[in-house]
C-alpha cells in the first residue's frame, strides 16, 4: 500500500540578505491512511514550514531546494500550480494555529465556506450551503443555518476554530495538516477538539499530521511522533516508545518540561539555553550548545539511526532504550 504522504529528504530554504535560512533541512517521514503523526518541536524548529512545503504554499523567495513530497504516490514538488491548487483544500487540508486570524474578517462565514466547496466542485450555491450546514453540525455547531450568516468576529475562538476545521473537512480530505490548532484555546475545548479529530481520522481513514510544541497534547492523540530541532528530525518512533524511552537528550528535555511527567514538588524542568540562530548553525549536532552529554564527537553531524525497530534518534550518545527514571530527567 502506498503511504498517504511520503516525504523524502525535504529541504526548504529562505534566501535572506544575511544568508540562506534552512528552515527544513533534510526531513524524511511518511504518514499512512488513518494514522496520526505528532510533529513536535520548539518555536522556530521548522514545523509550520514543513506543513506549508507539503501544500506548496511557501512564499517566494522561499523555495524547495531539494527532496520529494509524494501524495498517494504523486510527486508534488514538481506538480503544476493548478494541480496543487486542486489538491489543496480538497485532498490535503490545513488548519492554522490562531483561529482569530484564519477567517477573513470582512467576509461572512457562508461566503468563506461556500467558496471552498465551489473551488473544487461544480455545485449550486444551495447544494454547497447544505454541505456546509452538514459539516458544521458534525463539528458541534448548533443552528448552523443561522450561524452561517454571521461574520467571524461574532464567534468565540473555539467556535471559529470549529468553523476552520469544518472548512478543512468539507471535501473529506485524505490528509489534514493541523498546525497547533488548539494552542490558542482553553483546555476543555482543546480536549473536545482533539477527541473529535481523532475519532474522525479513525472513522474516515484520514491521515493527520498534528503539529505542536506541547508534547502532552500529542501524547494521548498520536500514533507516532516526530521531534524536530532546528530544521532536522532528531527523534521519531511510536508515541509510547518515545515518551517512555526517549533516546535523544532534546526529547528527554521536552518530556521533562511537561507538567505531570515529574514527581510532585520538583521544579518544572526547562531545557537551558536557546535554539541556535537559523543563520548561524553549528556544523555538528545542532543541540550541542544545550546538551549535557556533548563531547568532541558531537562536532560532526550525527545520523538519524534506528537503534530499536521503528525508533530512530539523531545522537552520538543516545540514552539507553530503558524507561526514564525521574532522577534522570533533571540530570
Amino acid at each position: 500500500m502506498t503511504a498517504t504522504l511520503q516525504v523524502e529528504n525535504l529541504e526548504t530554504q529562505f534566501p535572506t540578505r544575511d544568508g540562506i535560512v534552512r528552515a527544513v533541512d533534510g526531513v524524511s517521514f511518511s504518514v499512512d491512511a488513518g494514522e496520526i503523526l505528532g510533529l513536535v518541536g520548539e518555536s522556530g524548529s521548522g514545523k509550520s514550514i514543513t506543513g506549508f512545503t507539503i501544500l506548496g504554499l511557501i512564499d517566494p523567495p522561499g523555495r524547495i531546494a531539494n527532496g520529494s513530497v509524494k501524495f498517494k504516490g504523486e510527486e508534488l514538488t514538481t506538480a503544476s500550480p493548478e494541480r496543487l491548487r486542486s489538491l489543496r483544500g480538497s485532498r490535503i487540508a490545513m488548519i492554522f494555529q490562531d483561529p482569530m486570524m484564519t477567517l477573513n474578517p470582512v467576509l461572512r462565514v457562508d461566503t468563506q465556506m461556500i467558496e471552498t466547496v465551489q473551488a473544487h466542485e461544480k455545485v449550486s450555491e444551495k447544494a454547497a450551503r447544505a454541505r456546509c450546514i452538514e459539516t458544521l453540525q458534525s463539528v458541534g455547531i448548533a443552528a448552523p443555518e443561522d450561524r452561517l450568516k454571521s461574520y467571524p468576529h461574532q464567534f468565540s475562538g473555539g467556535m471559529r476554530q470549529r468553523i476552520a476545521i469544518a472548512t478543512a473537512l468539507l471535501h473529506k480530505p485524505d490528509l489534514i495538516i493541523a498546525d497547533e490548532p488548539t494552542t490558542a484555546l482553553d483546555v476543555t475545548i482543546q480536549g473536545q477538539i482533539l477527541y473529535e479529530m481523532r475519532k474522525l481520522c479513525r472513522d474516515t481513514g484520514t491521515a493527520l499530521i498534528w503539529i505542536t510544541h506541547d508534547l502532552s497534547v500529542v501524547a494521548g492523540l498520536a500514533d507516532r511522533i516526530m521531534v524536530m530541532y532546528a530544521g532536522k528530525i532528531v527523534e521519531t518512533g511510536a508515541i509510547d516508545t518515545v515518551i517512555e524511552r526517549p533516546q535523544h537528550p532534546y526529547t528527554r528535555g521536552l518530556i521533562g518540561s511537561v507538567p505531570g511527567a515529574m514527581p510532585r514538588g520538583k521544579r518544572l524542568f526547562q531545557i537551558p539555553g536557546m535554539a541556535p540562530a537559523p543563520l548561524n548553525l553549528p556544523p555538528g549536532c545542532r543541540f550541542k550548545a544545550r546538551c549535557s552529554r556533548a563531547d568532541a564527537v558531537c562536532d560532526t553531524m550525527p545520523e538519524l539511526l534506528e537503534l530499536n525497530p521503528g525508533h530512530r534518534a539523531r545522537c552520538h550518545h543516545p540514552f539507553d532504550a530503558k524507561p526514564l527514571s525521574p532522577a534522570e530527567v533533571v540530570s
Partner: protein
Amino acid sequence: MAVMSVLVFVGIYMIGDPLAILVSPEATELDREAIAKSLGLDRPMWEQYLTFVTSALQGNFGKSFVFGQPAINLILERMPATLELALIATFMSVVIGVPLGLYAGLRHETVAARAIMAGSVLGFSLPNFWVGLMLIMVFAVQLGWLPASGRGPTMEVLGIHVSFLSLTGWKYLALPALTLGLSKCALIIRLARATAREVMLMDYVKFARAKGLSEKRVIGVHILKNIMVPITTVTGLELGSLIAFAVITETIFSWPGMGKLLIDSIVHLDRPVVVAYLIVVVFLLVIISLIVDILYSVLDPRVRLGEAK
C-alpha cells in the same frame, strides 16, 4: 461653524472696503453713500454681522454685491460643476490607484512595481497648478486633442447640468479631473500598496490559498475587500480636500464651479458669496463624513452598529 462664520466675516471685513472696487472712481461721494446704504455697508461691523447671522439662520446669506442675486443661489448654481469634477477626479484616482497599488504591493520586487512607486512620488510632489499647465500644454496646445478650458455643452438630468454623460463632456472633464485627481491617485496607490503588503501576510490569506481558491479569488475578494476599508475612509476624507483644491484647478481650466466663483468673489471682496461658499463647503464635508461612516460599516462588519457580540 459659528466660529468659522465670525472668522471669515471679520477677515473679509478687514481686508478691504468692497465699495472701493464696486464703485467707479468717477462716482461722487453722494453716489458712494447711496450704494453703501443699499448694500448695508454704512452700518458698523457688529451690526452687519448680526444682520448676517439672523438672516443666515433663515437660509438667507445676503445678496452678492457684484451679481445682485442671493449669494446662496449663486453657489448652489455652481455646485454641481464642482461636485462633478471632484467626484470624477476621485473616481479616476480610485479606479487607477487601487489596481496599481495592489499590483505594486503584491509584486513589490518587480521593476513595474518600482516604476509605479516612483510615479506616485512624482504625483505627490508636483504642484497642482504646474500639472494643470503642463497638461494644457501637451494635450490642448501641442496635440490639440482636448479642450483647455470651460465645461463645454452639458446635459440636464433631474434639473442638474452634467458633463459625464456625453463624449464631448468627458473631453472637457478629462484634463481638469486628471489634474485634480493626480495627487489623490498617488496617495491611493501608496495606501493600497501598504495595505496590500500587510494583508497578503495575514493568516486568512494563506488559509484562503490553503482552501484551494484560485489566485483571482484570493486577490480579487479576500485581499481587495480588506484593502477597500482604509481606501474608502481615506477617499471620503480626501473628497473634502478635493472640493477645496478645486479652487486652483477650476481657475486654471476656467471650470465654471464654486471654486472659480470663490476666487472671483474674493477679488471683488464679495463678502456674502465668500461666506456662503464656506458655509456650503463645511456643510458638504459634514455630509461626506456621514456617508463615509455608513460605507465604512458596510465594508467592515466589525464596526457595524447595533450588533451583539
